[in-house]
Protein backbone atom coordinates (compact mmCIF):
# COMPACT_ATOMS: atom_id res chain seq x y z
CA UNK A 1 0.00 0.00 0.00
CA UNK A 2 1.06 3.59 -0.50
CA UNK A 3 1.87 6.26 2.04
CA UNK A 4 -0.06 6.13 5.34
CA UNK A 5 -2.19 9.25 5.73
CA UNK A 6 -3.99 8.24 8.94
CA UNK A 7 -2.50 6.09 11.68
CA UNK A 8 -4.28 4.96 14.87
CA UNK A 9 -1.89 3.41 17.36
CA UNK A 10 -3.48 1.69 20.40
CA UNK A 11 -6.13 4.39 20.69
CA UNK A 12 -8.46 4.29 23.69
CA UNK A 13 -11.30 6.60 24.57
CA UNK A 14 -13.82 6.75 27.35
CA UNK A 15 -17.01 8.79 27.78
CA UNK A 16 -17.07 9.64 31.45
CA UNK A 17 -15.36 7.15 33.73
CA UNK A 18 -17.02 3.94 32.72
CA UNK A 19 -18.03 3.93 29.09
CA UNK A 20 -15.04 2.57 27.19
CA UNK A 21 -16.05 3.60 23.69
CA UNK A 22 -12.83 2.90 21.74
CA UNK A 23 -10.67 -0.03 22.82
CA UNK A 24 -7.11 -0.52 21.56
CA UNK A 25 -7.84 0.72 18.06
CA UNK A 26 -5.03 0.07 15.58
CA UNK A 27 -5.72 1.30 12.09
CA UNK A 28 -3.70 2.46 9.13
CA UNK A 29 -5.25 4.24 6.19
CA UNK A 30 -3.30 4.66 2.98
CA UNK A 31 -3.54 7.68 0.71
CA UNK A 32 -6.46 7.28 -1.66
CA UNK A 33 -7.98 4.42 0.31
CA UNK A 34 -11.76 4.20 0.59
CA UNK A 35 -12.91 2.63 3.81
CA UNK A 36 -16.45 1.80 4.87
CA UNK A 37 -17.02 1.36 8.59
CA UNK A 38 -20.12 -0.46 9.76
CA UNK A 39 -21.37 -1.96 12.96
CA UNK A 40 -24.29 -1.79 15.38
CA UNK A 41 -25.19 1.52 17.00
CA UNK A 42 -23.01 2.34 19.99
CA UNK A 43 -20.12 0.37 18.55
CA UNK A 44 -17.90 3.46 18.38
CA UNK A 45 -17.75 3.88 14.61
CA UNK A 46 -18.80 7.55 14.61
CA UNK A 47 -16.51 8.25 17.53
CA UNK A 48 -13.65 6.67 15.61
CA UNK A 49 -13.91 8.98 12.61
CA UNK A 50 -14.68 12.00 14.80
CA UNK A 51 -11.34 11.45 16.51
CA UNK A 52 -9.58 12.03 13.20
CA UNK A 53 -10.46 15.76 13.13
CA UNK A 54 -10.55 15.95 16.91
CA UNK A 55 -14.24 16.58 17.31
CA UNK A 56 -13.68 13.88 19.92
CA UNK A 57 -10.58 13.73 22.12
CA UNK A 58 -8.93 10.36 22.73
CA UNK A 59 -7.28 9.66 26.06
CA UNK A 60 -4.70 6.99 25.23
CA UNK A 61 -2.62 6.11 22.22
CA UNK A 62 -1.56 8.15 19.20
CA UNK A 63 -3.42 9.40 16.17
CA UNK A 64 -1.31 10.79 13.33
CA UNK A 65 -3.07 12.52 10.45
CA UNK A 66 -1.07 13.57 7.41
CA UNK A 67 2.14 13.46 9.44
CA UNK A 68 0.81 15.55 12.32
CA UNK A 69 0.08 13.98 15.67
CA UNK A 70 -3.17 15.07 17.32
CA UNK A 71 -2.62 16.77 20.66
CA UNK A 72 -3.92 19.82 22.49
CA UNK A 73 -1.94 22.02 20.12
CA UNK A 74 -4.70 24.18 18.62
CA UNK A 75 -2.63 25.23 15.62
CA UNK A 76 -2.00 21.59 14.70
CA UNK A 77 -5.71 20.81 15.07
CA UNK A 78 -6.71 23.71 12.87
CA UNK A 79 -4.16 22.61 10.24
CA UNK A 80 -5.50 19.06 10.27
CA UNK A 81 -9.10 20.26 10.04
CA UNK A 82 -8.18 22.10 6.86
CA UNK A 83 -6.96 18.81 5.38
CA UNK A 84 -9.95 16.81 6.57
CA UNK A 85 -13.47 17.47 5.28
CA UNK A 86 -16.45 16.11 7.17
CA UNK A 87 -20.05 15.36 6.23
CA UNK A 88 -22.58 14.81 9.00
CA UNK A 89 -25.73 12.77 9.32
CA UNK A 90 -27.78 15.91 10.04
CA UNK A 91 -26.05 17.96 7.28
CA UNK A 92 -25.25 20.77 9.73
CA UNK A 93 -25.44 23.46 7.09
CA UNK A 94 -25.50 26.98 8.47
CA UNK A 95 -29.17 27.96 8.15
CA UNK A 96 -28.55 31.71 8.36
CA UNK A 97 -26.25 31.71 5.34
CA UNK A 98 -27.12 31.06 1.72
CA UNK A 99 -25.80 27.95 0.02
CA UNK A 100 -23.03 29.97 -1.59
CA UNK A 101 -22.12 31.64 1.71
CA UNK A 102 -22.00 28.24 3.39
CA UNK A 103 -19.39 27.24 0.85
CA UNK A 104 -17.28 30.40 0.83
CA UNK A 105 -17.17 30.88 4.62
CA UNK A 106 -14.23 28.60 5.40
CA UNK A 107 -12.14 29.44 2.32
CA UNK A 108 -12.51 33.15 3.09
CA UNK A 109 -11.96 33.01 6.85
CA UNK A 110 -9.71 30.00 7.24
CA UNK A 111 -8.01 29.87 3.85
CA UNK A 112 -7.86 33.70 3.45
CA UNK A 113 -9.06 33.34 -0.14
CA UNK A 114 -10.39 36.56 -1.70
CA UNK A 115 -14.20 36.59 -1.96
CA UNK A 116 -14.36 36.47 -5.73
CA UNK A 117 -12.03 33.50 -6.00
CA UNK A 118 -13.80 31.71 -3.15
CA UNK A 119 -17.12 32.17 -4.95
CA UNK A 120 -15.74 30.85 -8.22
CA UNK A 121 -14.38 27.79 -6.49
CA UNK A 122 -17.65 27.34 -4.59
CA UNK A 123 -19.66 27.45 -7.82
CA UNK A 124 -17.32 24.86 -9.27
CA UNK A 125 -17.93 22.56 -6.31
CA UNK A 126 -21.70 23.13 -6.55
CA UNK A 127 -21.57 22.11 -10.20
CA UNK A 128 -19.65 19.03 -9.15
CA UNK A 129 -22.53 18.00 -6.87
CA UNK A 130 -25.03 19.17 -9.52
CA UNK A 131 -26.78 21.84 -7.50
CA UNK A 132 -25.30 25.10 -8.82
CA UNK A 133 -28.74 26.55 -9.59
CA UNK A 134 -29.56 26.62 -5.85
CA UNK A 135 -26.57 28.79 -4.86
CA UNK A 136 -28.69 31.76 -3.75
CA UNK A 137 -31.14 29.78 -1.63
CA UNK A 138 -31.05 29.14 2.09
CA UNK A 139 -30.37 25.56 3.24
CA UNK A 140 -33.82 25.03 4.73
CA UNK A 141 -35.37 25.78 1.34
CA UNK A 142 -33.71 22.66 -0.07
CA UNK A 143 -34.64 19.00 0.19
CA UNK A 144 -32.61 16.70 2.43
CA UNK A 145 -30.72 15.20 -0.47
CA UNK A 146 -29.89 18.62 -1.84
CA UNK A 147 -28.75 19.80 1.59
CA UNK A 148 -26.44 16.84 1.98
CA UNK A 149 -24.94 17.46 -1.44
CA UNK A 150 -24.34 21.09 -0.45
CA UNK A 151 -22.68 19.81 2.73
CA UNK A 152 -20.36 17.65 0.63
CA UNK A 153 -19.54 20.59 -1.61
CA UNK A 154 -18.86 22.73 1.46
CA UNK A 155 -16.40 20.18 2.81
CA UNK A 156 -14.70 20.00 -0.59
CA UNK A 157 -14.18 23.76 -0.81
CA UNK A 158 -11.07 23.60 1.34
CA UNK A 159 -9.67 20.95 -1.07
CA UNK A 160 -9.18 18.40 1.71
CA UNK A 161 -6.97 15.33 1.37
CA UNK A 162 -9.34 13.22 3.44
CA UNK A 163 -13.14 13.12 3.55
CA UNK A 164 -15.04 11.74 6.53
CA UNK A 165 -18.69 10.74 6.15
CA UNK A 166 -20.67 10.12 9.32
CA UNK A 167 -23.80 8.23 8.24
CA UNK A 168 -24.41 10.67 5.38
CA UNK A 169 -27.60 9.03 4.13
CA UNK A 170 -29.22 7.94 7.40
CA UNK A 171 -31.38 11.05 7.74
CA UNK A 172 -32.57 11.03 4.14
CA UNK A 173 -35.82 9.93 2.52
CA UNK A 174 -35.32 6.74 0.51
CA UNK A 175 -35.82 8.62 -2.75
CA UNK A 176 -32.90 10.94 -2.00
CA UNK A 177 -30.29 8.47 -0.88
CA UNK A 178 -29.21 7.67 -4.42
CA UNK A 179 -28.43 11.26 -5.42
CA UNK A 180 -26.07 11.58 -2.44
CA UNK A 181 -24.45 8.20 -2.98
CA UNK A 182 -23.90 9.05 -6.66
CA UNK A 183 -21.94 12.14 -5.65
CA UNK A 184 -19.89 10.10 -3.19
CA UNK A 185 -19.17 7.40 -5.76
CA UNK A 186 -18.01 10.07 -8.18
CA UNK A 187 -15.73 11.49 -5.51
CA UNK A 188 -14.31 8.05 -4.81
CA UNK A 189 -13.55 7.68 -8.50
CA UNK A 190 -11.40 10.80 -8.32
CA UNK A 191 -8.96 9.28 -5.84
CA UNK A 192 -10.11 10.97 -2.62
CA UNK A 193 -9.17 9.28 0.66
CA UNK A 194 -12.54 8.49 2.21
CA UNK A 195 -13.72 7.05 5.50
CA UNK A 196 -17.42 6.44 5.53
CA UNK A 197 -19.62 5.24 8.35
CA UNK A 198 -22.65 3.79 6.59
CA UNK A 199 -24.93 0.83 6.32
CA UNK A 200 -25.32 1.23 2.58
CA UNK A 201 -23.79 -2.09 1.68
CA UNK A 202 -24.32 -1.47 -2.02
CA UNK A 203 -22.10 1.57 -1.71
CA UNK A 204 -19.52 -0.45 0.20
CA UNK A 205 -19.42 -3.05 -2.56
CA UNK A 206 -19.21 -0.42 -5.26
CA UNK A 207 -16.42 1.82 -3.96
CA UNK A 208 -14.70 0.54 -0.81
CA UNK A 209 -11.19 -0.95 -0.80
CA UNK A 210 -11.80 -2.17 2.69
CA UNK A 211 -14.76 -2.72 4.98
CA UNK A 212 -14.27 -2.45 8.73
CA UNK A 213 -16.75 -4.01 11.13
CA UNK A 214 -16.81 -2.62 14.66
CA UNK A 215 -18.54 -3.76 17.81
CA UNK A 216 -18.15 -2.74 21.44
CA UNK A 217 -15.44 -0.22 20.63
CA UNK A 218 -13.23 -2.70 18.82
CA UNK A 219 -12.39 -3.45 15.24
CA UNK A 220 -13.81 -6.95 14.94
CA UNK A 221 -12.91 -7.62 11.37
CA UNK A 222 -11.60 -5.85 8.28
CA UNK A 223 -11.37 -7.10 4.77
CA UNK A 224 -11.96 -6.29 1.12
CA UNK A 225 -15.68 -5.92 0.38
CA UNK A 226 -15.85 -9.16 -1.60
CA UNK A 227 -14.24 -11.18 1.17
CA UNK A 228 -16.13 -9.33 3.86
CA UNK A 229 -19.57 -10.03 2.45
CA UNK A 230 -18.90 -13.45 0.94
CA UNK A 231 -16.70 -14.89 3.60
CA UNK A 232 -17.05 -13.17 6.98
CA UNK A 233 -14.66 -14.58 9.55
CA UNK A 234 -16.17 -13.89 12.96
CA UNK A 235 -19.53 -15.00 14.31
CA UNK A 236 -20.37 -11.46 15.31
CA UNK A 237 -19.89 -10.25 11.74
CA UNK A 238 -22.00 -13.08 10.34
CA UNK A 239 -24.75 -12.28 12.80
CA UNK A 240 -24.66 -8.55 11.90
CA UNK A 241 -24.63 -9.19 8.17
CA UNK A 242 -27.53 -11.61 8.42
CA UNK A 243 -29.53 -8.91 10.15
CA UNK A 244 -28.84 -6.07 7.73
CA UNK A 245 -28.85 -8.12 4.54
CA UNK A 246 -31.50 -10.60 5.61
CA UNK A 247 -34.56 -8.75 4.43
Amino acid at each position, binding site marked *: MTEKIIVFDKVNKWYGNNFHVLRDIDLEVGQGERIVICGPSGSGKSTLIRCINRLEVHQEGRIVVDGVELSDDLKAIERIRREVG*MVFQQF*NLFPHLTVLENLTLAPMWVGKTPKKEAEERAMHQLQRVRIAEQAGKYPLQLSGGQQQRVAIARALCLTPKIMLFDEPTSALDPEMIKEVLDVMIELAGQGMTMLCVTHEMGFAKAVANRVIFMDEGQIVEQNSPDEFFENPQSDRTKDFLSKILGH
Partner: protein
Amino acid sequence: MSAVFKSIAPRPAPVRTEGFVPWVRANLFGDWKSIATTLIILGLAFAYVPGIVSWGAVNAVFKPDADVCQAARGTGACWGVVTEKYRLIIFGRYPYEAQWRPEVATILLLALLIASCIRAFWRPSLVLLWALVIPAFFVLMGGGMLGLEAVSTDQWGGLPLTIMLATFGIVLAFPLSVVVALGRRSELPAIRSLCVVYVELIRGVPLISVLFMASFMFPLFMPVGKSPDVLIRVLVGITLFAAAYLAETVRGGLQAIPKGQIEAAQSLGLSYWQTQRKIVLPQALAMVVPGIMNNFIAIFKDTSLVTIVSLYELTGALSLALNSDADWRPFKIEGYLFITLIYFTFCFSMSRYSLWIEKRVSVSKTR
Protein backbone atom coordinates in the same frame (compact mmCIF):
# COMPACT_ATOMS: atom_id res chain seq x y z
CA MET B 1 -51.82 -3.41 -16.58
CA SER B 2 -50.77 -0.37 -14.57
CA ALA B 3 -53.10 2.47 -13.64
CA VAL B 4 -52.25 5.95 -14.94
CA PHE B 5 -51.61 8.51 -12.19
CA LYS B 6 -53.99 11.46 -12.65
CA SER B 7 -53.25 14.69 -10.84
CA ILE B 8 -56.25 16.63 -9.43
CA ALA B 9 -56.13 20.31 -10.38
CA PRO B 10 -56.17 22.76 -7.40
CA ARG B 11 -59.51 24.51 -6.73
CA PRO B 12 -60.26 27.71 -4.77
CA ALA B 13 -61.73 27.34 -1.27
CA PRO B 14 -65.58 27.11 -1.27
CA VAL B 15 -66.05 29.83 1.43
CA ARG B 16 -64.16 33.11 1.43
CA THR B 17 -61.73 33.17 4.34
CA GLU B 18 -59.86 36.40 3.62
CA GLY B 19 -60.98 40.02 3.75
CA PHE B 20 -62.72 42.25 6.30
CA VAL B 21 -66.18 40.69 6.64
CA PRO B 22 -64.95 37.08 6.97
CA TRP B 23 -62.36 38.33 9.47
CA VAL B 24 -65.01 40.04 11.61
CA ARG B 25 -67.29 37.03 11.42
CA ALA B 26 -64.53 34.62 12.39
CA ASN B 27 -62.80 36.68 15.07
CA LEU B 28 -65.48 38.87 16.66
CA PHE B 29 -68.67 36.83 16.28
CA GLY B 30 -67.31 33.31 15.85
CA ASP B 31 -69.15 31.67 18.76
CA TRP B 32 -71.18 32.80 21.76
CA LYS B 33 -68.02 33.50 23.82
CA SER B 34 -66.64 35.83 21.17
CA ILE B 35 -70.04 37.49 20.74
CA ALA B 36 -70.31 38.10 24.50
CA THR B 37 -66.76 39.46 24.73
CA THR B 38 -67.28 41.72 21.73
CA LEU B 39 -70.50 43.11 23.22
CA ILE B 40 -68.92 43.71 26.64
CA ILE B 41 -66.00 45.55 25.07
CA LEU B 42 -68.35 47.66 22.94
CA GLY B 43 -70.41 48.43 26.06
CA LEU B 44 -67.33 49.53 28.02
CA ALA B 45 -66.24 51.69 25.11
CA PHE B 46 -69.64 53.41 24.96
CA ALA B 47 -69.53 53.96 28.72
CA TYR B 48 -66.05 55.42 29.05
CA VAL B 49 -64.77 56.77 25.75
CA PRO B 50 -67.08 59.83 25.68
CA GLY B 51 -65.98 60.78 29.22
CA ILE B 52 -62.32 60.49 28.30
CA VAL B 53 -62.79 62.54 25.13
CA SER B 54 -64.67 65.28 26.94
CA TRP B 55 -62.06 65.44 29.73
CA GLY B 56 -59.07 65.20 27.46
CA ALA B 57 -60.22 67.33 24.53
CA VAL B 58 -63.68 68.96 24.62
CA ASN B 59 -63.48 70.57 28.10
CA ALA B 60 -59.69 70.69 28.24
CA VAL B 61 -57.74 73.89 28.75
CA PHE B 62 -54.81 74.38 26.40
CA LYS B 63 -53.85 77.90 27.45
CA PRO B 64 -51.07 78.21 30.02
CA ASP B 65 -53.46 79.96 32.45
CA ALA B 66 -53.48 78.50 35.97
CA ASP B 67 -56.77 80.21 36.96
CA VAL B 68 -58.72 78.84 33.99
CA CYS B 69 -57.19 75.44 34.65
CA GLN B 70 -58.23 75.65 38.28
CA ALA B 71 -61.81 76.44 37.22
CA ALA B 72 -61.93 73.47 34.85
CA ARG B 73 -60.62 71.04 37.43
CA GLY B 74 -62.57 67.80 37.49
CA THR B 75 -64.28 68.41 34.16
CA GLY B 76 -61.43 69.09 31.80
CA ALA B 77 -57.73 68.39 31.50
CA CYS B 78 -55.24 71.20 31.92
CA TRP B 79 -52.85 70.79 29.03
CA GLY B 80 -51.78 74.35 29.77
CA VAL B 81 -49.36 72.88 32.27
CA VAL B 82 -47.45 71.36 29.37
CA THR B 83 -47.55 74.58 27.36
CA GLU B 84 -46.25 76.44 30.40
CA LYS B 85 -43.62 74.00 31.64
CA TYR B 86 -42.53 71.96 28.64
CA ARG B 87 -39.06 73.44 28.49
CA LEU B 88 -38.42 72.64 32.11
CA ILE B 89 -39.84 69.13 31.66
CA ILE B 90 -37.83 68.42 28.56
CA PHE B 91 -34.54 70.09 29.48
CA GLY B 92 -34.60 70.00 33.30
CA ARG B 93 -32.25 72.41 35.05
CA TYR B 94 -30.18 73.14 31.96
CA PRO B 95 -29.60 76.93 31.76
CA TYR B 96 -32.62 78.44 30.01
CA GLU B 97 -30.77 80.60 27.45
CA ALA B 98 -28.51 77.72 26.42
CA GLN B 99 -31.28 75.18 25.92
CA TRP B 100 -30.75 75.19 22.16
CA ARG B 101 -27.61 73.20 22.89
CA PRO B 102 -29.28 70.10 24.39
CA GLU B 103 -31.95 70.48 21.71
CA VAL B 104 -29.44 70.30 18.85
CA ALA B 105 -27.40 67.64 20.67
CA THR B 106 -30.46 65.43 21.17
CA ILE B 107 -31.64 65.83 17.59
CA LEU B 108 -28.15 64.85 16.42
CA LEU B 109 -28.11 61.83 18.69
CA LEU B 110 -31.60 60.74 17.65
CA ALA B 111 -30.73 61.17 13.99
CA LEU B 112 -27.66 59.01 14.56
CA LEU B 113 -29.75 56.34 16.28
CA ILE B 114 -32.38 56.33 13.55
CA ALA B 115 -29.69 56.15 10.86
CA SER B 116 -28.08 53.25 12.70
CA CYS B 117 -31.38 51.38 12.52
CA ILE B 118 -31.77 51.77 8.76
CA ARG B 119 -30.27 49.13 6.54
CA ALA B 120 -28.98 51.55 3.91
CA PHE B 121 -26.66 53.06 6.55
CA TRP B 122 -25.12 49.76 7.59
CA ARG B 123 -21.67 50.30 6.17
CA PRO B 124 -18.26 51.18 7.57
CA SER B 125 -18.85 54.93 7.37
CA LEU B 126 -21.52 54.56 10.08
CA VAL B 127 -18.70 54.09 12.59
CA LEU B 128 -17.25 57.39 11.45
CA LEU B 129 -20.67 59.00 11.94
CA TRP B 130 -20.74 57.72 15.55
CA ALA B 131 -17.20 58.99 16.08
CA LEU B 132 -18.35 62.45 14.98
CA VAL B 133 -21.77 62.70 16.61
CA ILE B 134 -20.86 61.39 20.07
CA PRO B 135 -18.12 63.98 20.75
CA ALA B 136 -20.36 66.67 19.23
CA PHE B 137 -23.10 65.65 21.69
CA PHE B 138 -20.81 66.04 24.68
CA VAL B 139 -19.27 69.31 23.44
CA LEU B 140 -22.73 70.79 22.94
CA MET B 141 -24.00 69.55 26.30
CA GLY B 142 -20.93 70.25 28.39
CA GLY B 143 -19.53 73.31 26.63
CA GLY B 144 -16.36 74.83 27.99
CA MET B 145 -14.88 75.07 24.50
CA LEU B 146 -15.59 76.63 21.09
CA GLY B 147 -17.02 79.64 22.93
CA LEU B 148 -19.72 77.57 24.57
CA GLU B 149 -20.23 78.26 28.24
CA ALA B 150 -19.43 75.26 30.47
CA VAL B 151 -22.49 73.50 31.91
CA SER B 152 -21.69 70.95 34.61
CA THR B 153 -23.26 67.53 34.36
CA ASP B 154 -25.47 67.96 37.43
CA GLN B 155 -27.37 70.58 35.44
CA TRP B 156 -28.00 68.22 32.53
CA GLY B 157 -31.49 66.89 32.60
CA GLY B 158 -34.77 65.97 30.99
CA LEU B 159 -35.13 64.13 27.72
CA PRO B 160 -31.50 64.61 26.56
CA LEU B 161 -30.30 62.89 29.72
CA THR B 162 -32.83 60.07 29.35
CA ILE B 163 -31.86 59.45 25.74
CA MET B 164 -28.16 59.72 26.50
CA LEU B 165 -28.28 57.29 29.42
CA ALA B 166 -30.40 54.82 27.48
CA THR B 167 -28.26 55.04 24.35
CA PHE B 168 -24.96 54.56 26.13
CA GLY B 169 -26.43 52.02 28.51
CA ILE B 170 -27.61 49.92 25.56
CA VAL B 171 -24.59 50.44 23.32
CA LEU B 172 -22.15 49.55 26.11
CA ALA B 173 -24.18 46.84 27.83
CA PHE B 174 -24.88 44.85 24.69
CA PRO B 175 -21.30 43.90 23.74
CA LEU B 176 -20.48 43.36 27.40
CA SER B 177 -23.44 41.02 27.73
CA VAL B 178 -22.33 38.97 24.72
CA VAL B 179 -18.86 38.56 26.23
CA VAL B 180 -20.34 37.58 29.59
CA ALA B 181 -22.76 35.12 27.99
CA LEU B 182 -19.92 33.49 26.06
CA GLY B 183 -17.84 33.52 29.24
CA ARG B 184 -20.50 31.63 31.14
CA ARG B 185 -20.21 28.87 28.58
CA SER B 186 -16.42 28.95 28.47
CA GLU B 187 -14.44 25.80 29.08
CA LEU B 188 -12.05 27.72 31.31
CA PRO B 189 -13.32 27.47 34.91
CA ALA B 190 -11.85 30.82 36.00
CA ILE B 191 -13.63 32.77 33.26
CA ARG B 192 -16.84 30.83 33.77
CA SER B 193 -16.92 31.45 37.52
CA LEU B 194 -16.10 35.12 37.08
CA CYS B 195 -19.06 35.55 34.73
CA VAL B 196 -21.41 33.56 36.95
CA VAL B 197 -20.45 35.62 40.01
CA TYR B 198 -20.89 38.86 38.09
CA VAL B 199 -24.34 37.97 36.76
CA GLU B 200 -25.65 36.56 40.03
CA LEU B 201 -24.25 39.43 42.08
CA ILE B 202 -25.82 42.11 39.90
CA ARG B 203 -29.11 40.28 39.54
CA GLY B 204 -29.24 39.91 43.28
CA VAL B 205 -29.55 43.65 43.92
CA PRO B 206 -32.03 46.26 42.69
CA LEU B 207 -30.88 48.93 40.24
CA ILE B 208 -31.46 51.56 42.90
CA SER B 209 -28.75 50.10 45.11
CA VAL B 210 -26.37 49.88 42.17
CA LEU B 211 -27.02 53.56 41.49
CA PHE B 212 -26.52 54.43 45.16
CA MET B 213 -23.23 52.57 45.16
CA ALA B 214 -22.09 54.32 42.02
CA SER B 215 -23.19 57.73 43.16
CA PHE B 216 -22.51 57.87 46.92
CA MET B 217 -20.36 54.93 47.99
CA PHE B 218 -17.84 54.77 45.16
CA PRO B 219 -16.40 58.28 45.82
CA LEU B 220 -15.76 57.30 49.46
CA PHE B 221 -13.20 54.78 48.28
CA MET B 222 -11.48 57.23 45.97
CA PRO B 223 -8.97 59.93 46.89
CA VAL B 224 -10.72 63.27 47.42
CA GLY B 225 -11.46 65.01 44.12
CA LYS B 226 -10.22 62.04 42.11
CA SER B 227 -13.58 60.38 41.57
CA PRO B 228 -14.97 60.37 38.01
CA ASP B 229 -17.99 62.51 37.21
CA VAL B 230 -21.27 61.33 38.74
CA LEU B 231 -22.82 60.96 35.30
CA ILE B 232 -20.08 58.53 34.25
CA ARG B 233 -20.40 56.58 37.49
CA VAL B 234 -24.15 56.28 37.03
CA LEU B 235 -23.72 55.28 33.41
CA VAL B 236 -21.28 52.55 34.41
CA GLY B 237 -23.79 51.39 37.03
CA ILE B 238 -26.63 51.20 34.50
CA THR B 239 -24.39 49.43 31.98
CA LEU B 240 -23.21 46.80 34.45
CA PHE B 241 -26.75 46.25 35.65
CA ALA B 242 -28.30 45.96 32.20
CA ALA B 243 -25.49 43.76 30.87
CA ALA B 244 -26.11 41.13 33.54
CA TYR B 245 -29.73 40.72 32.48
CA LEU B 246 -28.93 40.94 28.78
CA ALA B 247 -26.23 38.31 29.21
CA GLU B 248 -28.81 35.81 30.41
CA THR B 249 -31.06 36.58 27.45
CA VAL B 250 -28.13 36.10 25.08
CA ARG B 251 -27.12 32.89 26.85
CA GLY B 252 -30.61 31.57 26.22
CA GLY B 253 -29.97 32.03 22.52
CA LEU B 254 -26.52 30.45 22.70
CA GLN B 255 -27.96 27.36 24.32
CA ALA B 256 -30.48 26.92 21.55
CA ILE B 257 -27.76 26.48 18.91
CA PRO B 258 -27.44 22.78 18.05
CA LYS B 259 -24.04 21.26 18.78
CA GLY B 260 -23.84 20.17 15.16
CA GLN B 261 -23.47 23.79 14.06
CA ILE B 262 -20.37 24.22 16.18
CA GLU B 263 -18.98 20.87 15.07
CA ALA B 264 -19.53 21.76 11.42
CA ALA B 265 -17.69 25.05 11.93
CA GLN B 266 -14.86 23.29 13.76
CA SER B 267 -14.58 20.62 11.09
CA LEU B 268 -14.07 23.43 8.57
CA GLY B 269 -11.14 24.70 10.62
CA LEU B 270 -12.79 27.83 12.01
CA SER B 271 -11.24 29.06 15.25
CA TYR B 272 -13.28 29.58 18.43
CA TRP B 273 -13.82 33.28 17.78
CA GLN B 274 -14.59 32.77 14.10
CA THR B 275 -17.13 30.12 15.04
CA GLN B 276 -18.77 32.39 17.60
CA ARG B 277 -18.79 35.41 15.33
CA LYS B 278 -19.85 33.80 12.06
CA ILE B 279 -21.97 30.85 13.13
CA VAL B 280 -23.13 30.92 16.73
CA LEU B 281 -23.85 34.57 17.51
CA PRO B 282 -25.75 35.47 14.31
CA GLN B 283 -28.14 32.58 14.92
CA ALA B 284 -28.30 32.92 18.70
CA LEU B 285 -28.98 36.67 18.64
CA ALA B 286 -31.57 36.31 15.89
CA MET B 287 -33.39 33.83 18.06
CA VAL B 288 -33.59 36.16 21.07
CA VAL B 289 -34.42 39.45 19.34
CA PRO B 290 -37.68 39.82 21.31
CA GLY B 291 -35.87 39.18 24.60
CA ILE B 292 -33.07 41.59 23.76
CA MET B 293 -35.55 44.30 22.82
CA ASN B 294 -37.34 43.63 26.09
CA ASN B 295 -34.09 44.41 27.89
CA PHE B 296 -33.44 47.50 25.78
CA ILE B 297 -36.89 48.88 26.57
CA ALA B 298 -36.34 48.11 30.25
CA ILE B 299 -33.05 50.03 30.18
CA PHE B 300 -34.78 52.99 28.57
CA LYS B 301 -37.39 53.12 31.30
CA ASP B 302 -34.98 52.28 34.12
CA THR B 303 -33.11 55.50 33.42
CA SER B 304 -35.94 57.21 35.32
CA LEU B 305 -34.41 55.81 38.52
CA VAL B 306 -31.38 58.11 38.32
CA THR B 307 -33.59 60.78 39.88
CA ILE B 308 -32.78 59.30 43.26
CA VAL B 309 -29.13 60.21 42.84
CA SER B 310 -30.09 63.77 41.87
CA LEU B 311 -29.87 63.48 38.12
CA TYR B 312 -33.07 64.97 36.74
CA GLU B 313 -33.90 63.01 33.61
CA LEU B 314 -37.37 63.24 32.04
CA THR B 315 -39.36 61.92 35.03
CA GLY B 316 -37.20 63.77 37.52
CA ALA B 317 -37.45 66.98 35.52
CA LEU B 318 -41.24 66.76 35.58
CA SER B 319 -41.29 66.56 39.39
CA LEU B 320 -38.78 69.37 39.50
CA ALA B 321 -40.95 71.49 37.23
CA LEU B 322 -44.18 70.99 39.15
CA ASN B 323 -43.19 70.52 42.80
CA SER B 324 -41.61 73.94 43.02
CA ASP B 325 -44.66 75.74 41.65
CA ALA B 326 -47.80 75.71 43.78
CA ASP B 327 -49.97 77.10 40.93
CA TRP B 328 -49.26 74.15 38.67
CA ARG B 329 -48.63 71.36 41.17
CA PRO B 330 -52.29 70.17 41.05
CA PHE B 331 -51.93 69.28 37.37
CA LYS B 332 -49.37 66.55 37.77
CA ILE B 333 -51.58 64.00 36.04
CA GLU B 334 -51.53 65.98 32.81
CA GLY B 335 -47.76 66.33 33.15
CA TYR B 336 -47.34 62.61 33.66
CA LEU B 337 -49.62 61.88 30.69
CA PHE B 338 -47.34 64.12 28.61
CA ILE B 339 -44.15 62.25 29.52
CA THR B 340 -46.06 58.97 29.22
CA LEU B 341 -46.62 59.90 25.61
CA ILE B 342 -42.88 60.56 25.18
CA TYR B 343 -41.88 57.28 26.83
CA PHE B 344 -44.48 55.43 24.81
CA THR B 345 -43.29 56.92 21.54
CA PHE B 346 -39.77 55.68 22.17
CA CYS B 347 -40.68 52.27 23.55
CA PHE B 348 -43.26 51.62 20.87
CA SER B 349 -40.78 52.55 18.13
CA MET B 350 -38.29 50.17 19.66
CA SER B 351 -40.78 47.35 19.74
CA ARG B 352 -41.89 47.96 16.13
CA TYR B 353 -38.24 48.02 15.09
CA SER B 354 -37.70 44.70 16.83
CA LEU B 355 -40.58 43.21 14.80
CA TRP B 356 -38.92 44.41 11.61
CA ILE B 357 -35.61 42.87 12.67
CA GLU B 358 -37.38 39.62 13.49
CA LYS B 359 -38.89 39.55 10.03
CA ARG B 360 -35.52 40.22 8.44
CA VAL B 361 -33.66 37.50 10.30
CA SER B 362 -36.39 34.96 9.69
CA VAL B 363 -35.82 35.11 5.92
CA SER B 364 -33.54 32.09 6.09
CA LYS B 365 -36.14 30.07 7.97
CA THR B 366 -38.91 30.37 5.40
CA ARG B 367 -39.09 27.38 3.16
